[in-house]
């Protein structure tokens, strides 16, 4: 298992490097120059040339990329061109927020998808099945920002601040700032709306997928055998059918992480959360190249690691699967 993990991580290195290279080249190919934004009213051609030289922006793109990689190898993620802040420090401050959002939104998705799929599969072509399928269709059709605004208007505005509309409270012991009070309860209150807004679309997708898998599995011979042996319906469904039906769903869950990161950009902006999504989008808009690279690197890495974890869970669901 350990060798498998190391091999997978080693295989991920070229993928991550390729992603960072593509992002590096693309960012420098689109119109816009961070130096103009940096110098603002004080812009002169002479000053701009000096600043470009200071940040190495006057060098060929591949040379710039090489320099960035060389610094990265030494643990230096660079410094934001606009704010002057170390990129790694900002990434580490924001990463826990986005990770929590993604994990909880996936939990929301599963909490909705699993019961809905089971009901849909076991009572196929009944009102319960049609209801679950219809809700799934609606869920897939609602974009994150729309679900977020609806939740905001209901729970923060109409219900007079039942749930906080914006911002973030860290879990105890995780706060990266001087002025901050960590609280589990306040953290949950802050994350619930964003997680639901982000998770609802995934829930719908997973419901449809899991329902189809369940329908397939419950018609297999080993389920018939289990029932014939007199096993109660609950263990048949949860222990035998669901476990096997989950394998394709888990694969899709891993792939959905990319969509969740994309959705997090929208949700974090809407709920004014200090996560990686807003960090990335701000960096792209400002053409803060170093910050964009930091964002690309961490999201690519997160995607690879989460998919590795997903692959490793196969063996938990199906003991026949072995890693070598």
């Amino acid at each position, binding site marked *: 298992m350990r060798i498998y993990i190391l091999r997978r991580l080693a295989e991920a290195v070229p993928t991550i490097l390729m992603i960072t290279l593509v992002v590096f080249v693309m960012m420098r190919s689109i*119109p*816009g120059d961070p130096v103009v934004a940096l110098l603002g009213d*004080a812009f002169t051609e002479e000053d701009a040339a000096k600043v470009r030289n200071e940040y190495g922006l006057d060098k060929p793109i591949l040379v710039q990329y090489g320099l960035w990689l060389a610094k990265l190898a030494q643990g230096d993620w660079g410094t934001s061109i606009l*704010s002057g802040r170390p990129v790694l420090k900002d990434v580490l401050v924001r990463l826990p927020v986005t990770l929590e959002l993604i994990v909880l939104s996936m939990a929301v998705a599963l909490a909705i998808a699993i019961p809905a799929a089971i009901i849909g599969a076991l009572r196929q072509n009944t009102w319960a099945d049609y209801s679950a399928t219809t809700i799934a269709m609606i869920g897939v059709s609602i974009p994150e920002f729309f679900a977020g605004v609806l939740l905001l*208007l209901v729970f923060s505005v109409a219900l007079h*601040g039942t749930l906080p509309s914006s911002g973030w409270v860290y879990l105890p012991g995780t706060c990266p700032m001087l002025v901050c009070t960590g609280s589990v309860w306040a953290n949950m209150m802050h994350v619930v709306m964003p997680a639901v807004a982000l998770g609802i679309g995934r829930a719908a997708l997973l419901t449809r997928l899991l329902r189809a898998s369940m329908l397939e599995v419950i018609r297999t011979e080993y389920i018939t055998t289990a029932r014939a042996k007199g096993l109660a319906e609950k263990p048949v469904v949860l222990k035998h059918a669901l476990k096997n039906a989950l394998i394709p769903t888990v694969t899709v869950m891993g792939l959905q992480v990319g969509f969740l990161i994309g959705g997090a950009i929208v949700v974090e902006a809407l709920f*004014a959360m200090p996560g990686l999504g807003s960090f990335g989008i701000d960096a792209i808009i400002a053409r803060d190249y170093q910050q964009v690279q930091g964002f690309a690197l961490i999201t690519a890495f997160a995607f690879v690691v989460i998919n590795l974890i997903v692959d490793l869970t196969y063996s938990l669901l199906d003991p026949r699967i072995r890693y070598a």
Partner: protein
Amino acid sequence: MRHPVRNAATLIVIAMMLGGVTVAHAQKRGGTLRVAYGNEIAGLDFHVTAGYEMIWVATNVGCGLVSITPEGKFIPDAAESWQISPDGLLYTFKLRNNVVFHDGTKVDAAAVKFNIDRIMDPATRSSVRTFYEAVHSVEVLDARTVQIRLKHPYAFMLHMLAAYRMGLVLYSPAAIQKYSPEDRRAGKPEATISCGPFRLIEWVKGNQLVMDRFDKYFEPGLPYLDRVIIRTIKDPVTQMAAFKAGEVDFLADFSVDHVDTLRAQNPNAQIMTGKETTPMVAMMKVTVPADGKPMSKNRAPHPIFGDVRVRKALGCYGIDRKEIVKLAFKGQATPWLGIIPPGTQDTVDVTSLCPYDPAKAKALLAEAGYGPQKPLTLELLTNTEKAVFNVIATVIKEQVARIGVTANIRLVDKVSWLNTATQDGPFDMYVEDLASLLVVDQNAYLAASTAAWNSARHTDTKVDDYFARYAREMDSAKRKVIAKEFQEFSVENLYWNTISGSPFYQVAQPWMKGYTYQAEFKVIYRKVWLDR
């Protein structure tokens, strides 16, 4: 009841005394003010970084020599008094004795000289350096007296020190020497040492900025607040939800589109607005580089707007400013034409010189050679920073279509716009609101032919002459005459095409007291207190 008048007077005096006592005790000390900004703070070097959000921190962490009231009266800051020599060339400031920086070092004449010299040093790349063009030198007369010598009379020296790019901010020389420009830009608290009512505690970009009361602030008893926490909420819907839920006390900038909704949801909210000091423009490019190299000094007329007849056809008679204001601002702005926004000192309303007249616009276009045989097509650039820009661009597109002109809207992000508009990039017309202006002189760095921000790229030195004459004229009555003449000249040439003022809104909870609205110029929490 024998002396009703006397009794009434006595009651009034008692009431006034009681009132006075009540007022004196009314300002509650302590508490945390929760502020939301609509945009992220770009950086925290007060002499270098651009953006209002940074400035609104600087006006609380920093102090300067003088400040200015909303009525335009100069008031002491670190300087307790000042004198201007009869020839207008020497400004002598006497500093207060009790002003210290947040690191405990004294604010003295040497510190003032250090700061102005730093701003004027090209190596600092200060965004306010251009305002100090008139300054010849700064001399320390004694520990508490500093003298600024000018090259020529400059009527707006005090305005400049008080409010240009929101005024001079004094840094602790010790902190400047100890820490790097990157440390200041990144907002390291130990590098961001000034002498304002609040000291910077931390800035975690994208998360929060925290300022605490500076106990040794030179004005006794101020500030009232213990702490100010600033965070960024970009989405106006989320801003409204946070405000309605009482999660924020103050929205430092609020979208004009949502004011009516917020008012309906929060009848007790303090919705503040005032004079429109920011111009909303539909800028037309006047020249292009003759050699094809952006920013080249070798200029040729712009193929469309190089012809003043076309500028006047579109900018003067072809645009219905009233309709734009009605549709884009729901009527909450002033249709305007002059180079100086409606709320700016010495402005003159010249809008009537350009009445909406499509027939006249068509005639001018025909005179310039455009018509059904040779239709005019142009590119209308705008950006995503504010939704209203795109609305205005769409209305202009519709209006110019009525005179046979096709405008293709190009919507880009703010940085792309900056690169195109300020770097002599290819565009025909753009829609934007530019800097907030206190006086005409302030516009020189946007509109003079030599200005980096002369995005129209006009080359008419008469504009520079007007700015120079206006700035050097010490007689206010004569300045008004120059301003009027300049406005009329501007209408004739349309190097600068204003559409309207750009309204600015701030919103406070009913319990936030003591705040004075000063548009984008100053956001100061020094006298703010919380009544709850």
